[in-house]
């Protein structure tokens, strides 16, 4: 899932400094799963904002709502059209994609991100998420026994370890295991070590922003 984390309150309060009617818009997708931007967190953030303003003796109206998937325009449209002029700014608690979908859909309103979108990751335990995929657009997991060197190796090496690891730990940070040693052990376990001997790969790094098109699914012109 996409994993995000709420911005520090100081930064958030600074962003909404000169607004009075604030729509706090959560998303019930990935950010709910990683407990960052779901309906409960929307209520928490709204309460904190109201508490801050009340403390400073300044007026504020917080509107709390959550979309099913904020990266899907059809999920946002019914909510925002309904409350067209009730808010001055949208404080979106979705991931970066969600924030930008709202901004694109409703260009005349400022949309502010409440979260920092960190990575696409794994839920290791309740409350702990770790990065797993950089979305490099050309997956190599097939030949690395399901361990991604592009993401887990600090230097993103494609064709083997840099040699700087000690006791299996990366030279960049001692509690981060060396991805390639993990890949080696995994391939050995699956007796697929010969994958390492395949000719070295050259990655066709994607040009940002990427775009995926499924012509079969697109809308047909019936005029």
């Amino acid at each position: 899932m996409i994993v995000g984390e709420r911005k520090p309150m100081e930064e958030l309060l600074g962003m909404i400094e000169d607004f009075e009617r604030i729509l706090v818009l959560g998303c019930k997708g990935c950010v709910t799963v990683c407990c960052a931007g779901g309906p409960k967190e929307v209520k928490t953030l709204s309460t904190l904002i109201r508490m801050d303003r009340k403390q400073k003796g300044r007026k504020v109206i917080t509107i709390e709502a959550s979309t099913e998937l904020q990266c899907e325009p059809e999920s946002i449209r019914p909510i925002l059209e309904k409350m067209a002029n009730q808010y001055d700014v949208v404080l979106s608690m979705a991931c970066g994609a969600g924030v930008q979908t709202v901004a694109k859909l409703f260009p005349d309103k400022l949309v502010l991100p409440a979260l920092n979108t960190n990575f696409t990751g794994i839920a290791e335990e309740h409350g702990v998420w770790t990065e797993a995929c950089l979305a490099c657009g050309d997956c190599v997991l097939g030949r690395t026994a399901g361990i991604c060197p592009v993401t887990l190796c600090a230097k993103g090496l494609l064709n083997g370890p840099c040699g700087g690891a000690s006791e299996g730990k990366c030279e960049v940070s001692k509690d981060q295991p060396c991805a390639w040693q993990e890949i080696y052990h995994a391939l050995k376990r699956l007796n697929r070590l010969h994958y390492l001997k395949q000719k070295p790969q050259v990655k066709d790094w994607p040009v940002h922003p990427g775009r995926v098109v499924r012509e079969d699914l697109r809308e047909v012109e019936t005029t």
Partner: protein
Amino acid sequence: MDNFEPLIAVFSCHYCSYAAADLAGSSRIQYPPNIRIIKVPCTGRVSVNHILMALEDGSDGVYVAGCLKGTCHFIRGNYKAEKRVQYVKDLLSEINIEPERVQMYFMSAAEGTKFANVALEMTEAIKKIGHSPLNKSRS
């Protein structure tokens, strides 16, 4: 500020701290009348939002009183409550409201005296901090 009488919301679990409050009562241990108890089956039932909203409504202080560690009737409700109280304290510091307004306490059903002492300790602490910034009307 000397005659300021704080109002403190207390989340108290049925099996331990509510029973301790009963024991403090039946043992007639006097303590300050500033606390108002909200009974929950377990302190694990208390969410971050409950504590924040109690503060937003104007309580000068909030504390969650759960079972002694390892004796929670529901095993780990009190550990959960402790972590959530700490999270609320961090949130309060972020919007610079005194985190000491929110506390977590542990007591067994047999500790009536401790319940009374906690009520006294918290009342004194909140008196020192002063009334809640969200509730100027009741200074």
